[in-house]
């Protein structure tokens, strides 16, 4: 990986040599922005998200001996997914919705329809964790179905059923509260 801002124009003599392997820490650092996005998409608040991210980094560091040199990103995403599915943090640690919740929800995007997005985020909270994780891996993180199956070590049929469950639940949730839906033409 080149560290110059634009990889396509940074061709130098250096790239002709065998690239020096990046350290484990460097790879995690480089991954943190997208890991943070995934973490936030699984959780209810920025605080919860940062806790999960930190747990994931710690787990990756202590488990580094188990990394077999295959896709580092998938390996790290899998750690985060498993930590999240196994933890009961969301209920045990965040019993109520605080002020921080209100400002962290979808606040960072210039929404084309803020109310609709807020409802969507609320609808997300009603999804089972495993279905939500699959939905986020496919839609936000851009993984193919088979890649998700490989990452989570589940059959691709299970990926599809979780995806379907998530989508139908979101759809029903959005519809039931949306008496007069104003739909933008696609």
């Amino acid at each position, binding site marked *: *990986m*080149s*560290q*110059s*801002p*634009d990889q396509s124009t*940074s061709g130098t003599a250096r790239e002709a040599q065998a*690239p*020096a*392997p*990046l*350290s*484990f*820490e*460097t790879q*995690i*650092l*480089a991954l*943190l*922005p997208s890991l*943070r*996005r995934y973490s*936030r*998409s699984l959780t209810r608040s920025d*605080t919860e*998200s*940062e*806790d999960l*991210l*930190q747990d994931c*980094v*710690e*787990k990756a*560091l*202590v488990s*580094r001996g188990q990394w077999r040199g295959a896709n580092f990103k998938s390996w790290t995403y899998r750690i985060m997914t498993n930590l999240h599915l196994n933890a009961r*943090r969301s209920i045990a*640690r965040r019993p109520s919705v605080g002020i921080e919740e209100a400002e962290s929800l979808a606040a960072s*995007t210039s*929404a*084309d329809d803020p109310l*609709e*997005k807020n409802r*969507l985020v609320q609808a997300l909270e009603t999804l089972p964790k495993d279905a939500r994780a699959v*939905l*986020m891996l*496919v*839609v*936000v993180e851009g993984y*193919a*179905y088979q890649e998700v199956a490989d990452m989570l070590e589940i059959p691709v049929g299970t990926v*599809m059923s979780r*995806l*379907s469950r998530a*989508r139908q639940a*979101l*759809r029903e949730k*959005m519809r039931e509260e949306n008496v007069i839906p104003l*739909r933008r033409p*696609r």
Partner: protein
Amino acid sequence: MTEAGSVSEAELHAYADGFLDEADRARVQNFLAENPDAAQMVADWQEQNDELRAVFAGHERSKPTDIQLLTGGLARTGIWPSRRLALAAAAVLIFAAGALGGHYGPLLFERPDIQLAEAEILPREARNAFLVYASEVRHPVEVFANEETHLANWLGKRLSIANLKVPNLQPMGFKLVGGRLLPVGGKPGALFMYEDQTGQRLTVLVGRNKENRSTSFRFASASTVETFYWIDGELGYAVTGEISRDMLRRVAEECYRQFPS
């Protein structure tokens, strides 16, 4: 729920997610043209997709505290302190062992006389900051070069440096991108970023530590990333980039000349 024709529900998902090849896409489109309920459902899914991406895209970002995530130096908000401490301690040990044994091993053994605690942290943090921020395309800095005066005042205030000047590296072909606040040795530090015409970037890190002792210029190299650093009074400086050592030395000397002593 959608069993009609030759289109499965899995294919409808793949259609909504853009995973189908052209032939299958056309087949699904034909099916949807004749099945308005399914078409509405798929349209809803696609709208969900767009909205989900819009909601979470902005969360893909670096934070100044990212490096502490790796070194275990970040305060926790959670419970279960014992497990967390154990994990964090293990992480610190492993990271320290890796850092000492790997990149900075030679430094340790060749220069037993220097103040390791300070002189070793500085190039490591400088290198990490470079790796994290120089590769950021859209958000490499918090304050861009068009607000240079504000940048200098702001960071000067945080670092308690009266009339801090942002070094001018134009004569060497590097123009200022901007700067950001970030932790250096656990205290407020400044990072200035520059880039040349080809987009090659370098960073200048400034940190303050009361226990610093002045040093001469020193050099640290890890894979392709080179760092030149020195300590002047309480202030530590580090210039980092993937450029030739000779160029980096000239940049470092220029910064040394321009920074207030």
